[in-house]
């Protein structure tokens, strides 16, 4: 057993010498791997102290406290003092669709037009983005790559973060269509400054959402008929919405916007997820009654209004949890995703248990993205998407990811940042 562990340490230090371009995607899992003596955070709320977990051919085969002895040809990892987590999932991100935000040539997340459901983010996902590896080393193993811009910017797909190309990366294709709802925030005023308001906000809202409404109505009607003289790609693109194989993520934050979103679900008989949800705490019960899930964007935000509780964004997750709403946590942007575990940490500081907070970035996310049958928790039969940290993954004070597996493949945790770190430690002769 000691020998095997040593192998691992060697392997890790080797990777440090690689350049970014030679951080290879890992080959398929070979031998069965046995994790033992670990604190296993299952992701569903359960914690197994001194737990064990076995995975083989990329799937978790057993989890528990008293597992049968490892087979002789397996790899045993003694994880005493370590924590084992399901891979963290980033539910909304432009990862792989942009490399340098300010450089237009690197931006591939916004297309021209208001209603573009036939756009697929997956085909632009760049597996060689330098950002991806900086996420993996913080425990983020899956991401829903999401387009932005216009009202319906397109369809998102879930990718796993260790791939040669987007086809390899695809974890769930085209699982969601996105609708960025216009805002109902009353036109602003700053004391002493005047703003010119051209249109009544409510009118504008009705007009804009009306466009999406009529698009969906016409699409629904179109899809009733099989033969068409002219194929409408946009209508075709939303077919799975009406069969509920796809979800409509409605991006909105304010109460009335969210109520409209709830109504969309009823009107069109589709699965709706609210993305954003800054004010979801106000109508948590309504969301629960209507079985609307929420992707809560960025607990690390300022309160919506100057009078709101100063810690409101930190505790919104707790209020949704208490109301029984299915929710997960997200973070804005792409490189920022590496801080997603800490968004969960904050949610825990302000009310969630640590395990609930973990669920909010793993199993709940998987449920909302429709991938919970294969990932999101460390349960038998699911993909071995596993993160191992020497300390609490949700606290920057102790988070240190030492191993990670995607579908059983141990991935390389090196990244550009570590390499530059090594380069300049070398320059200054630092150990």
């Amino acid at each position, binding site marked *: 057993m000691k020998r095997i562990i040593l192998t691992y340490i060697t392997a890790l230090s080797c990777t440090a010498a690689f350049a970014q371009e030679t951080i290879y995607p890992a080959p398929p899992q070979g031998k069965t791997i046995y994790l033992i003596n670990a604190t296993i955070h299952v992701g569903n709320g359960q914690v197994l102290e001194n737990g064990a977990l076995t995975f083989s051919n990329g799937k978790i085969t057993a989890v528990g406290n008293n597992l049968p002895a490892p087979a002789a040809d397996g790899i045993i990892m003694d994880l005493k003092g370590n924590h084992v987590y399901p891979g963290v999932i980033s539910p909304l991100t432009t990862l792989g669709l942009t490399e340098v935000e300010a450089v237009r040539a690197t931006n591939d997340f916004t297309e021209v037009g208001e209603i573009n459901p036939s756009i697929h983010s997956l085909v632009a996902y760049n597996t060689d983005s330098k950002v991806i590896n900086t996420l993996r080393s913080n425990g983020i193993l899956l991401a829903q790559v999401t387009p932005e811009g216009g009202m319906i910017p397109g369809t998102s797909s879930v990718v796993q973060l260790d791939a040669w190309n987007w086809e390899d990366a695809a974890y769930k294709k085209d699982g969601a269509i996105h609708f960025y709802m216009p805002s109902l925030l009353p*036109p602003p005023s700053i004391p*002493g400054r005047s703003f010119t308001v051209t249109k009544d906000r409510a009118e504008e809202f009705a007009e804009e959402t009306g466009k999406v409404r009529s698009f969906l109505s016409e699409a629904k009607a179109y899809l009733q008929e099989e033969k068409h003289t002219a194929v409408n790609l946009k209508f075709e693109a939303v077919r799975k919405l009406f069969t509920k194989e796809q979800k409509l993520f409605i991006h909105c934050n*304010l109460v009335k916007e969210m109520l409209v979103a709830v109504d969309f679900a009823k009107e069109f008989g589709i699965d709706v997820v609210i993305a954003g949800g800054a004010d979801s705490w106000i109508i948590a019960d309504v969301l629960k009654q209507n079985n609307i899930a929420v992707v809560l964007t960025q607990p690390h935000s300022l309160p919506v209004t*100057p009078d709101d509780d100063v810690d409101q964004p930190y505790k919104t997750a707790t209020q949704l949890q208490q109301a029984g709403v299915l929710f997960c946590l997200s973070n804005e942007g792409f490189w920022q995703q590496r801080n997603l575990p800490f968004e969960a940490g904050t949610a825990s500081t302000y009310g969630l248990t640590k395990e609930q907070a973990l669920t909010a970035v793993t199993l709940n996310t998987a449920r909302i993205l429709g991938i919970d049958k294969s990932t999101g928790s460390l349960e038998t039969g699911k993909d071995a998407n596993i993160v191992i940290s020497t300390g609490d993954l949700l606290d920057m*004070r*102790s988070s240190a990811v030492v191993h990670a597996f995607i579908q059983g493949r141990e991935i390389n945790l090196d990244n550009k940042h570590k390499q530059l*770190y090594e380069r300049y430690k070398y320059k200054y002769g630092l150990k």
Partner: protein
Amino acid sequence: MSKFFSSRKRLSRLCLLLGGLLAGSYAQAQETFPVNGVADNREGCYAFVKATIVKSAGTVLNNATLVIRNGRIVSIGNGPVPKDAVVIDCEGKYIYPSFVDLYSDYGTPAVKKAAGGYRSEVQFLSATKGAYGWNQAIRSEVNASAVFTTDGTSAEALRNAGFGTVLSHQQDGIARGTGVLVTLADQRDNKALIKEKASAHYSFDKGSSTQNYPSSLMGSIALLRQTYLDAQWYQSHPAKEGTNLTLQAWNDNRALPQIFEVQDKWDVLRADKIGDEFGVQYIIKAGGNEYQRIPEMIATKASFILPLNFPQPIDVEDPNDARFVALSEMKHWELAPTEAAAFEKANIPFCFTASGLKDIKQLLAAVRKSIEYGLSEQKALDALTLSPARIIKADDQVGSLEPGKLANFLVTSGTIFNENTVLFQNWVQGKKYVVKDEGWKDVRGTYTLTVNPGNTKYTLLLKGTAATPALSLLQQDTLAGAVTINGQLVKLAFPLKKGGAQLRLSGVAGTTEWTGTGVDTSGKWVKWSAVFSAAYTQKDTAKPKTAPQIGNIYFPFNGYGWESLPKQQDLLIKNATVWTNEQEGKLENTDVLVRNGKIAQIGKNLPAGNARVIDGTGKHLTAGIIDEHSHIAISRGVNEGTQSVTSEVRIADVVNPDDVNIYRQLSGGVTASHLLHGSANTIGGQSQLIKLRWGADAEELKFAGADPFIKFALGENVKQSNWGDRQRERFPQTRMGVEQVLTDAFTRARDYEKAGADKRRDLELDALVEILNSKRFITCHSYVQSEINMLMHVADTFHFHVNTFTHILEGYKVADKMKQHGAGAGTFADWWAYKMEVQDAIPYNATIMQRVGVTVAINSDDAEMARRLNQEAAKSIKYGNMTEEEALKLVTLNPAKLLHVDTHVGSIKAGKDADLVLWSDNPLSIYAKADKTLVDGIVYFDREKDLELRQRISAERNRLVLKMLGEKKKGTPTQKAATTLEEMYHCEDLQGGHQQRLTDGNNEL
């Protein structure tokens, strides 16, 4: 002395005037304008008799006579009526001086507003043609008298509101030139204009200027200060400057009353500070929320022109919209009408202006509201009449009724502030303007009506108001009829029984009786006459007004503000884990005694004495967090990036103590913030270190005695890389050019320093000279190694040190050079990939620099992240294995060192300021919350008190919402619920700050 002198002067002028009047000098009657037709000279002599004459507020003559001639008052009192006077019986009527408004644009051309900020066309110099100054917003050469022309429609509206005289100026620009005093008489401009240059006007608003500079409030302030200096220098007529008509006019205008228009209470202090610097006492045209800071207003010693445009109640019927209206806005609605009363109570001189009123007809209603909210009637009248006249030293002409003054007066049916009083006439320069004729003669009373043939008698009662009397027939059942009086013509109609046909009469209301013809109920013609028999006695139905119930003022004026400012008290924090940041390291179970705002003692089992004990068991005590790079609490622009060098602008001028982010950051353990200019240009503005003394005003927020700093910037922002294709004109557009901007600026500064005493003082170069002399220190926004290296080279060449590189995401590449140069670093924990120059940013940056020996701080540049700086510091444990104690120093002691205040703050050591945070957990853990945050020993944030404040906010909001709903129900016009925006900035924000959360989530720096 001056008082004596001026009154004597006034007296002598008065004598002259009277002399002229009595002599009826022919020369006085002459004029240059030819007459088309037969000359029609009239002296316009009138005597208003039996009137109640209010000469000025508090001076009332009963049954008195007012005599006017040639547009001026001749006498007031009981003297004889001149034979040639037209006598007007004013029995029962009141005569008041007409109102005076000091803040008007009457008769001046309309001003077109222009933006002229960043993303507009590039315009470095003024577009005004002529021998004027360099900045288009300095318009001292504009004289309102030169552009003034009477405007019948506006004049009528103003007269109808009660005004007789206005001080008018073109409300355009930062220096607006002179104001002209004019009457509202409808006559030739020559006659209406009574003082050609009566005032000089200023503001912070660049108005129609299309020039880019200034784009920020601090830029406006700097421009004003520099212009004062330039004008002083121009007095020596420097040859190189040539003729500068703007500066010439600026100097000429200095002798006039100086009126400064501001937007709010903090602007008042900003303007007053400029005045103090240059020996000017401004008269302040206020914004309307000055009542929130009365002690500060008193201290300015200014006279004020108060607006009456109180906010309308907000339509809060939709709770989801009302949610976005801040409590401060609701409270302001309730408290705005208390402004004048607060000024009266504080004995601050003030007058009223109608400026800003949506409907000028609401003027008296607004004044009545002020009275309802505590203003005395006498003061209210004074504020409309004599006070404004005095403020601009025109009280020899207008403002009260005195012989020799202009015959500008109002004739009313009763006391001026009574709701039922009718304003009949407004006489301006001796000319009558009828405001309302109806009711001039009060015909109300009992009449005996005789109808012939038949000699049928009826008793009629005319009641209602004098202006619109109502008729009823008095018999067994009183029957309502109708009466219309139009001048002399009168119509009557009434039924003889309920629901019956009407008797219809019309005729003339004569001097002694009313007579006429009509048709009776059967259709036959009749003749009628009516004789007055008894006056109408009105029952006083007005309910005594009860003083309105109003909420308290908060300091600052924000939901989380104090009702009274907190006081220092001695504290003993017991049994905490104390992170000293000193050699002692982390001390378990330790007490810290705070006395007089300082850390007095650190030890175990310290006696409490009189100190309040705070239990720290299980908690951690650290020094307060210091954010080395912050943009909170800044008003109206964080960048004055319209030029590449703007070292003359100062954040100190625009600190905004009301920003709720001060409170939010206290809740995250921040006790001091270094407020920086943005990064839009190479040499930005001067920064300001503040302590988060929530509730204090801008001056009190400042960290006293701290070394002054200035913001520099390098790289993509200053070369406008990400500003779009239109912004390609400003030098520099490359890192090569940035080096030249710096070298050029410091070369000019060095030459300037050597120049003689007669040099033009240049605020921009003054700041750079301070840098050269190590009296001001640089915080430089920077990213890539080449530019970091470059700035250190420039600094070496000019023999100064770069104090701090901020952002500095490639600092790890040149940490050795930085150490050698003596530069420190303030950086982000883990930001990258948002722009090209952060491609090599790594989260190990802080650790590497720290290990090489650079003083490293982690800072926020972001109002949200600043609340979690302890967590950002903790990332250095994750990235690079920094020890916990060293990591904590990244946000406490190290920024204190970078800011040269480590002898006062940054660690827990006896004698240092008690800027402390009591954490619920290890301060580097994400699970830690700040339970209490102290500045100078005052607990400014307390998690338990915070819960009470939340309840107070909720209760107060609810109270005000109900009150506003009540107003709406009563039919009071309302304003739409508008989102109260918070001003929030990052480095790169060019114009307005914005609410981050719901509009734009990206932090691009």
